């Protein structure tokens, strides 16, 4: 029986129940969006530690009717109550057009280490192309014995590997070096996502083409409207660079490079060229616009640092984070992500007093190589003003710096890349959580 065919008598009760589930979902949605963060203690007391208020549970409507049928075929979508969980185009630095632009992952809502494909951040230089995999071709040429071309079905015949790795844009956080421009962690850190990538090591294909021993660099080039290209050192190409077609168990999304992208673990997202059509082997870098005028770091005395590929060790608290509100004193789980392009996360420390004192947080398994790692710390908030932040240490022993540590080495002027500074949130007596980078 469909909902419409319900007996008239059922409708008034149906309406009441619908009303109450609406209120519930409002709470839940604002919680996920970061509007409200309930203290564990508050929940516990409301739920019955006081024990005085009797409230009998009613049978929920979902238990009193048939649900939706199983579709003959469908691509499953999130619950309608999760509609607020969206990636969002940058709105702190508003671009003049939306083809060469970016959108950011709602890290405050991410559970576990894997970013759902529909929430994975985007950065394109000429919009998202629609490429038919049956017509997509990859070419490998330049300093090789035998130039080769591959169809997608050729590539997918190789023994594949599947690896969990984060991907971060070098511009992540560029609005928040010297002013607290972002309200939420989505705006300040959302050019960061993590997935399981499936593909073939590029070294396998290069072995087949026969690389000249004098080769030092490779050019990766996309088939999109920007024909985006970058020079990559051969050492990294041979060490762990993948050509991937799979992301989290399905083919790449169009906006992630469908049907084929390079994946360069631990390095700035821009080098993991999407819609990959060409790999050219050479003995020098190409010095393209994307590696001179862009994706370079301002340094003292008017200089620019080039080929700064590595995404160094970094962490951020995602809960509580900017835009959320603590509901009174009590016990809270501080949670966040740590990651490093140089290896795995060894430890994360949390401060509650703006960096004077630190305590070690708990790391959640797994803590994989070049992968988002979750940390948590149970905090009993006394209701007074606080400043919380996290600081990660990676497997090389590198300790995440503060912005003032970084400012000693680099020039923080203009659109500065590679912000891996400690990122504090302030908590007011009213429970409001705010960006406290300055």
């Amino acid at each position, binding site marked *: 029986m469909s909902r419409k065919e319900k007996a008239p008598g059922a409708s008034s009760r149906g309406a009441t129940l619908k009303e109450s589930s609406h209120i519930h979902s409002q709470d839940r949605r604002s919680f996920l969006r970061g509007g409200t963060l309930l203290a564990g203690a508050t929940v516990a007391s409301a739920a019955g530690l006081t024990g005085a208020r009797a409230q009998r549970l009613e049978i929920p409507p979902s238990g009193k009717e048939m649900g939706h049928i199983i579709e003959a075929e469908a691509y499953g979508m999130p619950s309608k109550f999760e509609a607020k969980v969206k990636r969002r185009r940058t709105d702190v630095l508003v671009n003049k057009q939306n083809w*060469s632009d970016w959108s950011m992952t709602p890290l405050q809502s991410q559970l576990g280490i894997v970013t759902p494909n529909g929430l994975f951040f985007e950065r394109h230089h000429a919009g998202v192309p629609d490429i038919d995999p049956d017509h997509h071709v990859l070419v490998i*040429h330049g300093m090789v014995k035998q130039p*080769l*071309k591959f169809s997608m079905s050729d590539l997918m015949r*190789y023994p594949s590997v599947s690896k969990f790795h984060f991907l971060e844009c070098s511009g992540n956080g560029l609005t928040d070096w010297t002013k607290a421009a972002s309200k939420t962690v989505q705006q300040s850190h959302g050019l960061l996502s993590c997935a399981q990538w499936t593909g073939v090591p590029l070294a*396998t294909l290069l072995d087949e083409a026969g690389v000249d021993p004098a080769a030092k660099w490779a050019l990766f080039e996309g088939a999109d409207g920007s024909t985006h290209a970058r020079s990559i050192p051969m050492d990294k190409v041979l060490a762990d660079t993948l050509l991937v077609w799979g992301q989290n168990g399905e083919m790449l999304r169009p906006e992630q490079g469908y049907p084929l992208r390079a994946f360069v673990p631990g390095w700035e997202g821009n080098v993991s060229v999407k819609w990959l059509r060409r790999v050219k082997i050479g003995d020098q870098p190409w010095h393209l616009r994307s590696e001179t005028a862009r994706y370079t770091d301002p340094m003292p005395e008017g200089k*620019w640092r080039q080929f700064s590929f590595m995404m160094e060790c970094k962490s951020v608290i995602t809960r509580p984070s900017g835009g959320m509100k603590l509901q009174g004193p009590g016990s809270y789980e501080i949670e966040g992500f740590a990651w490093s392009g140089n290896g795995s996360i060894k430890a994360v420390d949390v401060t509650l007093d703006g960096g004077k004192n630190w305590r070690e947080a708990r790391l959640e398994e797994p803590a994989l190589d070049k992968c988002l790692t979750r940390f948590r710390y149970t905090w009993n908030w006394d209701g007074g003003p606080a400043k919380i932040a996290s600081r990660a240490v990676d497997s090389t022993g590198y300790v995440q710096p503060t912005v003032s540590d970084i400012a000693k080495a680099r020039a923080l002027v203009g659109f500065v890349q590679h912000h891996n500074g400690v990122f504090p949130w302030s908590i007011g007596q009213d429970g409001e959580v705010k960006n406290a980078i300055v």
Partner: protein
Amino acid sequence: MRSCNLAAGALAALVVTALGLGTAVSQSTSRKPHFGKPISQADLAAWDIDIRTSDGKGLPQGKGTVAEGKALFAQQCVACHGDAAKGGPMYGSMVGGIGSFTTNARVLTPGSMYPYAPILFDYIRRTMPMTAPQSLTNDQVYALSAYILNLNGLIAENAVMDAASLTKVMMPNRNGFVVDNRPDTTAKRCMANC
């Protein structure tokens, strides 16, 4: 009896098949997969568009003047980039900024930022005009490169750009780059009274 023989025969066949398969499998694992197809340089010429900008390797034949570039710019670029490339509805200025890098307001333009002039050729050819990338002829790309260089005061109004002359243009930021020296911070894991 007959059925028994048949069964024995079938079993023998199965064993042979299994052995055969076994050999095939071990052969295919010992040999590396090889699925690429050879392609000739002529067949990939339309894709082989990268310029090694430091010495101009890969720059094609052809040439263009500042005047030709100015006319083309007015037709195909001005709507987004504005008059004289001073900034339009889709992108900021592409002129000026030379000398600004030692101030607190670094202005990034092709003139101030590109270490090598062939970057203009490489980028315009692969990406511009944004509405119709890879639609310009090589002569047109040389002309547009010439125009933008001239607007930035880097070549004369009567200059002609081709593979040789474009490579020779001296860019102000030629020596502006340093290599990655990270880690460039040495934060310590201080735990108390930091």
